[in-house]
């Protein structure tokens, strides 16, 4: 390789790095959870405990990570294992008597054609209250296939994230699941 070529390569890398830092400083490069790596949503991890490091390791109080339900994927089930603790005793409505979320951050609403007599006949919308959710991942783990449909995943929220140079969650994440992306790809 000629000296000139080496110099040009170094300059190109430096220019690329500088452009990246400018984009990051402008909020155009952001951190996001890679759902296919996160233990809570990664397939073929049946039966393991939910990982809550996104809650405990984020520098922001209550974390910048939230559980997000993608409605187009959600089955709108009567017995949602992310909403109910499905191993709690069954109540008079034929439903589990306890909810799963420790912060009561998921609300449930019957939608469409509603049968007031029989809750099993209805579809439900599950709405996550982002003021209450701290991204603990419990509901994400229960929504995962094959128990659920995998519609709930953990996401970094950009109104909360301070875009650390090196995400503190990533330092602790056993799956290396936080990644930096251009913002249009991260939403």
């Amino acid at each position, binding site marked *: 390789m000629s000296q000139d070529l080496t110099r040009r390569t170094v300059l190109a890398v430096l220019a690329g790095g500088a452009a990246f830092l400018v984009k990051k400083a402008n909020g155009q490069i952001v951190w996001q959870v890679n759902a296919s790596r996160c233990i809570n949503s990664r397939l073929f991890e049946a039966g393991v405990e939910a990982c809550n490091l996104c809650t405990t390791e984020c520098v922001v109080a209550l974390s910048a990570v939230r559980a997000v339900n993608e409605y187009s994927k959600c089955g709108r089930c009567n017995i949602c*294992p992310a909403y109910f603790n499905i191993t709690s005793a069954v109540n008079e409505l034929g439903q589990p008597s306890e909810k799963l979320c420790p912060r009561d951050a998921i609300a449930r609403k019957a939608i469409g054609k509603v049968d007031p007599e029989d809750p099993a006949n209805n579809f439900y919308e599950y709405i996550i209250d982002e003021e209450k959710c701290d991204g603990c991942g419990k509901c994400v783990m229960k929504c995962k*296939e094959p128990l659920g449909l995998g519609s709930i995943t953990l996401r970094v929220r950009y109104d909360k994230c301070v875009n650390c140079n090196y995400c503190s969650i990533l330092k602790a994440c056993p799956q290396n699941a936080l990644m930096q992306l251009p913002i249009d790809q991260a939403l």
Partner: protein
Amino acid sequence: MQYRHVQVIDGKGALRGIAVDGNGQLYAAGDSEIRVFDRNERWPTSRPAHAVAVASDGSVYAGEIGQIEIFNGAGKLLHTWRDEKLLGRVTAIGFTKDSVLAGDAADRAIRRFDRGGKFLNNIGKDSAVNGLLIPNGVVDFGVDAQDTIYAANPGKHRVERYTAGGELLGHIGRFDGIDPAGFTGCCNPTNVAIRDGIYTTEKAGPRVKAYDFSGKLLAVIATDLFDANCKNMDIAVDARGRVYVVDTVKAAIFVFEPVKV
């Protein structure tokens, strides 16, 4: 009633649906073919096969996306019923005395056709509010000797009974995450077979059970043999009461036999 695990049959590729004929011959739908196990034959289908069923005259029906292919007992293709709308994704096929039933998972309904392929009516579509609630992508059902149709309605944790005309007669089953007599998870049972009773499979965790027609649990046939990530495990029961269950991850068929106690 008790069952013992007697055999594991290598699925010889991806497995979706299974069926047993009157002679105990086992058929499986998977990849783009029907496999006939004892004869070690593979009949190619023109699209990926999701379901297989054997009619009383010995013809073999393959459920696919947008169509049903009908073979004679030697594997010769006789007819193709194509209807992209009514046969969106055929995940189960069954028969009454005078009609052919196809579970269309794309539209979450059972379609009823006459023996020539003319559409007659829907079953389970929007009945009792939203009808078959199928978040798991598979419609499955069985038919008893009186032509009553037993459809898995996993979103309601029930097996529902319908007339061939589509009238909902009743159901067995309820949600319970602790008591094995109930169905657990978000949506179970996913699959059902009918013989001398009602046989069901569940996902997360995988479980196979037998009920009588009143809904009384007779046996938990198996739980821990299957891969934990299995779902939509098709089930068939032969005339001797042997129960065949698909492990969709291991691509194998587990066989269970009733034990006299």
